């Protein structure tokens, strides 16, 4: 039966919002290539690509987990702490199995590394199981359950690190150095995390679009009581989703250890859970559940990293200072764009009433402050002025239209 939106193959590969993301990524890359004073995209293209690819792969791996959890109608706030716990588990296991080599910065052998990595993934499985139990049996809201583990797991990882170093080495320590050549290979060879991310994305995509489980995940997120009444074991579907979320974070944790040659539970992965959720949301996931795609999340992760890289190249000062600000702005803009058509149709106003009036200086001051800090006082004044003028125009136009 023909259907009205029958479309050629190419556009069914990506949705229109995802094509918009591709376009946005290209624009960000071009803008950076032009605006960067060092023109590093021209002179050191491979350096830049490697940087972005590594960061994207590391973020993307657990953003895929976040995607599955969000489509299933849940949320996992604990990914950052899971990363720390996974790294610490890996290092602690190696320390326990090969203490002398670890302390002497010598190779521990592939068998030990494999056991350690499996232990980390296993811990991910346990954490996912704990989440599911808290959510389905104790009936905690997912936000509360994973908020508890967000706080709790990091502390647990620190305690694990300190007590294991106290027991196995001469001095108690808040970090464990990892210098096995296998980890070094991973650090120096960016194609490994990228390949893992690619394969994982493919698997996740297959699960979500081509398996019964994937369909059940969508059904669960779209309408949980109806899913149960349709005979779906919703508890088991949630179990999979939360384990997938925690295990992808555990996998990412291993890459962070390799990247930094150290398991440092105090800071490793701190705040990263929000970047993963942001990547999923920018890629089109709805926090209400039931909606989201793997290509969307992959593009969302690439977009976030490209924009962060762009800002660090253009502004020069420490990129990590602005990282949160960028992620926040990108999320707001992406989600606003996603519903802009609906807003225009419903006649909803961007700047209504007294709130709208106060929003004008709020947004203008924000723009001005950012511009001042990054480009100086003159730019700040100009940005503030432009923002006030633009927003006032929007406000006037809206009140004309509705009057």
């Amino acid at each position, binding site marked *: 039966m023909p259907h009205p939106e029958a479309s050629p193959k190419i556009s069914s590969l990506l949705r229109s919002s995802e094509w918009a993301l591709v376009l946005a990524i290209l624009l960000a890359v071009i803008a950076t290539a032009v605006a960067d004073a060092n023109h590093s995209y021209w002179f050191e293209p491979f350096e830049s690509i490697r940087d972005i690819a590594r960061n994207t792969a590391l973020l993307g791996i657990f953003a895929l987990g976040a995607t599955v959890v969000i489509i299933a109608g849940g949320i996992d706030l604990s990914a950052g702490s899971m990363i720390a716990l996974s790294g610490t588990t890996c290092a602690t296991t190696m320390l326990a199995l090969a203490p002398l080599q670890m302390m002497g910065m010598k190779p521990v052998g592939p068998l030990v590394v494999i056991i350690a990595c499996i232990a980390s993934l296993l811990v991910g499985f346990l954490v996912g199981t704990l989440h599911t139990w808290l959510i389905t049996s104790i009936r905690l809201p997912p936000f509360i359950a994973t908020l508890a583990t967000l706080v709790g797991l990091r502390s647990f990882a620190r305690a694990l690190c300190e007590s294991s170093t106290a027991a196995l080495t001469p001095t108690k320590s808040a970090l464990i150095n990892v210098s096995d050549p296998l980890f070094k290979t991973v650090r120096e060879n960016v194609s490994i995390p990228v390949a893992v991310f690619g394969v994982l994305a493919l698997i996740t995509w297959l699960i979500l679009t081509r398996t019964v489980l994937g369909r059940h995940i969508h059904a669960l997120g779209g309408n949980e009581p109806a899913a149960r009444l349709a005979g*779906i074991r919703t508890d088991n579907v949630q179990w999979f989703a939360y384990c997938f979320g925690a295990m992808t974070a555990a996998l990412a944790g291993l890459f962070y250890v390799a990247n930094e040659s150290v398991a440092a539970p105090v800071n490793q992965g701190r705040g990263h859970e929000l970047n993963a959720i942001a990547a999923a949301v920018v890629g089109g996931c709805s926090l209400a559940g039931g909606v989201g795609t793997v290509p969307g999340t992959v593009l969302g992760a690439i977009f976030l990293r490209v924009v962060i890289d762009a800002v660090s190249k253009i502004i020069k000062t420490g990129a990590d200072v602005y990282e949160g600000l960028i992620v926040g702005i990108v999320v707001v803009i992406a989600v606003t764009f996603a519903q802009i058509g609906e807003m225009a149709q419903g006649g909803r106003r961007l700047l209504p009433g007294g709130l709208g009036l106060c929003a004008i200086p709020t947004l203008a001051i924000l723009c001005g402050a950012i511009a001042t800090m990054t480009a100086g006082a003159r730019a700040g004044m100009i940005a503030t002025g432009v923002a006030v003028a633009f927003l006032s125009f929007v406000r006037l136009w809206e009140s004309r239209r509705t009057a």
Partner: protein
Amino acid sequence: MDHIDTPHAVVMQGITKRFPGVTALENVTIEVERGKLHAICGENGAGKSTLMKILSGIYPPDEGLLLVNGVEVRFTGTRHAEQAGVAIIHQELALVEDLSVAANVFLGREKRTSLGLLDEQAMTAECGRLLVSLECHVSPRARTGNLRVGDQQLIEIAKALSLNASIVVMDEPTSALTENESVRLERTISRLLAHGTTILYISHKMDEVFRLADRITVLRDGRHIKTVNRIETTPGEVTGWMVGREIASRQFDTPRVRGPKLLEINNLRVPWPEHPRGYRLSEISLDLHAGEILGVAGLMGAGRTELLETIFGAIEPTWTGTILLQGKPVRFRHPREACAAHVAMVTEDRKRLGLFPDLDVAGNVSLCSLTEALRGGFLSRAREESLVAAPLRDTGVKTPGPHASITALSGGNQQKCIIGRWLLTKPSLLLLDDPTRGIDVGAKAELYSLIDRLCRDGLGVILTSSELPELLALADRIIVLSEGRLIAEFSRAQATEQKIMEAATGS
């Protein structure tokens, strides 16, 4: 009121309202006299509620004029309409359950002390006065969620009174009320009319309309059909205008072939610890044969849904008694187990408990039988589409195709999709919980034939409905539940609306 000279409290002229895909109202004109009760009648989907939502400022009309007390108005929201003296009491109550009764009555218009703090005392006192005048014996301090539906309805009315509304819209106010509560509501209505309030009353219950109304307007398919004085017409005539044709009841009179016994329930009791009654269902015994339709009648809260949910394993299996399916005792703990035993249930609340808005038509239909759409362990879209083709055809779903969004279909077609979903699981027992709720007349007739056909193919069907003519037309036998107990059982030949209603209301 400046324009008291006009005899019409409300004039709606040439009102048109379109929603994506449907025209809900087309050029509807109604004049409502002041101080009278004007009933708006029509089948579900006729546009009654939409019209009233326009009057009370919830929707703006696409075209047409609205005059309140002779002045043209363009409401920008319910608050605006309330200021003009129009208050609406919704079919679905809009109360905040966790707030007190008084807080709900004054929600958004809270009284304040001279310091600007909440004046609980004044609100409680005035709320108490309003409740007394409505014969509602609940404390203004009670938590609203703890009250019975009938009392909650009166609280909505108290809210309208506290606004000094001169025009009150009531959208099927008795749909959730007991007989006593309905009588009390009717007394309240007479009192309001005596004070000069104009009431617009939406209902499809003819007895009520003919007891209360001064004038009657009939809508059908979004069009104005007729406005008449009550004394100039008869219930039969009004019903005829509503449906636009004679309802051929008892159209499935050819006897069905009764097969072997499918289901037997003995002395079923479902406890309900937190309720004073102590049980949801008690002393329920019934049986059902293949090729038979058992109708379950009862008012809201009588336990119809609970009975089906217990059989289907949708609620915690705390029940006692026995349920025998094809002679074997069963105790389903999860709908999954019921599915495996070829029991299917179409839930009452289609939107909340049946539909998956993010899945397309094919996805909604195939959901319970996805294993049949696998090829090499992976879902095959081609297989899925050929899988759902049969149920879509058999149930007569009108859809642009399996890719169509389920939310774009009409209620009747959505319901057929859900029935189709369950037919794919090859059930032997089909539980239908009020399957035609919120579905227009034409689609209802199609669903009736579908249910009749399924039954003749050998399915055992348990059908609950809040519309008695539906049960009378379809069921071989009808049981009546009241307050969780099985009060009466009628054969098709014995049953009449009168008898069932008397049993259900305990009169």
